[in-house]
């Protein structure tokens, strides 16, 4: 997956976790927590959805990398480069 495909995938996951959030105005540089109503259970769901959909394993120590869209995509790029978008 390329950078923009990973971004699309994360948006899709966010939409499934928080269907009522308006994601069209999401600022990629700003922490999710500061612009969306996400709690620690929702962050676990981002990790779990990535595992369910793409078998990407994220160790608990790395959860902090998922703070914003930019940091998430940067973190996931090497892990998801060989995954073919369905």
């Amino acid at each position: 997956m390329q950078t923009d495909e990973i971004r699309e995938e994360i948006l899709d996951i966010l939409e499934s976790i928080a269907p009522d959030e308006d994601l069209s105005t999401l600022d990629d540089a700003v922490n999710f927590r500061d612009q969306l109503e996400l709690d620690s259970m929702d962050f676990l769901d981002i990790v779990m959805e990535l595992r369910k959909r793409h078998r990407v394993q994220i160790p608990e120590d790395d959860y902090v990398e998922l703070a914003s869209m930019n940091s998430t995509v940067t973190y996931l790029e090497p892990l998801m480069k060989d995954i073919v978008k369905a």
Partner: protein
Amino acid sequence: MYDTIIIGAGMSGLAAGIRLAYYDQRVCILEKHTTIGGLNSFYRMRGRDYDVGLHALTNITPKGTKRGPLARLLKQLRISRDDLQISPQLGSDIVFPGVRLRFNNDFELLRSEIAREFPGQIDNFERVVSEIVEYDDLDDTHQAISARDKLNQLISEPLLIEMFFCPLMFYGSAREHDMDWGQFSIMFRSIFMEGLGRPYAGVRLILKHLVRKFRGLGGELKLRTGVERLAVDNGHVCGVVLENGEEIQGRRILSSAGWPETMRMCDDGDPVTSRSPGRLSFCETIATLDVQPQELGHRSTITFFNDSEEFHWTKPDEPVDVRSGVICSPNNFDYGESLLDEGTMRITALANFDYWNALDEHEYNMEKLRWYDRITDSAVRFVPDYRHHVLDTDMFTPTTVVRFTGHDGGAIYGTPDKQIDGRTHLDNLFVCGTDQGFVGIVGSIVSGISMANMHCLRD
């Protein structure tokens, strides 16, 4: 080999099952009883549908609210708010001699009622509210301080303190005489600051929805399947032996059977972690009426009553403590155009398990009739007298609670000492549900979700 075996198909077990099955685990829920639900269940008798447990769902926030336990539960289980078809209460009250405090799902009503009945306490009340708002229920540090001490510091009118304790203890205190401040805060928010609601079809709608979801995700549910024991080897559960003799394996076990009940299943001898069972149990009467309660002038959804200035939250010496109680009319929710076919009045009161458990079948049936009348006589001091409109009645006692929940002593809210982190002395056995810490339907579901997330998903 299952990834997770869950003991108990109540609200918490089903919710945990949905979480785990959604993330592709092999999950099996074992239910001892012939039906699902545990404490919150339903049955049909002489052609009528009855609910047990549920009076109302707490934590009812307006649709679209993004914070709070209800929003969290819907998100975590991928359930739409519309699927639960929750109708809000019409309005409830707390009645003590000479004082009535009304409340509904708009917190301003309770504020104005306190300003009217206790004008000298309104500033103190605001201080209580601001402390409650600050309490963080996701924080692991359980605030095990006395709610009574805390309220005595903040409020100088003892009657008002008793009037807060009455509904909050009835709806979820396993501890006698007092509550933990954390538990008090959670309950206060869930009942007064969020609100009460109910699906038109009652608790069966919620349970059936949860089961359908669980099965749809590939989860297995086995009814009439009690656990005989958990085979323990070297600090680890290595097998679940069922009452039918079969043995099944799971990588981990999540038990909603209750703390002492779960510990007793472990075959590693007397566990170091034993603790006393809860002592608080209920009787509940149910009357079906030939009129809607509103036609008798009864508009209240839930009435919490107490007949003196002091509220006693303790195991009664009498078979039933009729000094206080909860009167619930499921008709009095805002179902829009729909009305329930018949009127229903349910009355819940504290009861003594040992007394009811010692009766033989004949005495038991006679005592049920006797105490049905006493409980009803007590309640009609606080609501319109409906005794001439009764078509049919039923009643549960502490022994009924045992039959539905398996909890020792019919302990309605489990043991007073909760295991907030859900851990046990065994590395792959965890507890959820009543004895983990949250009560009520929303609380139980959140308990199942939290324990599944914390202990069963991250490996």
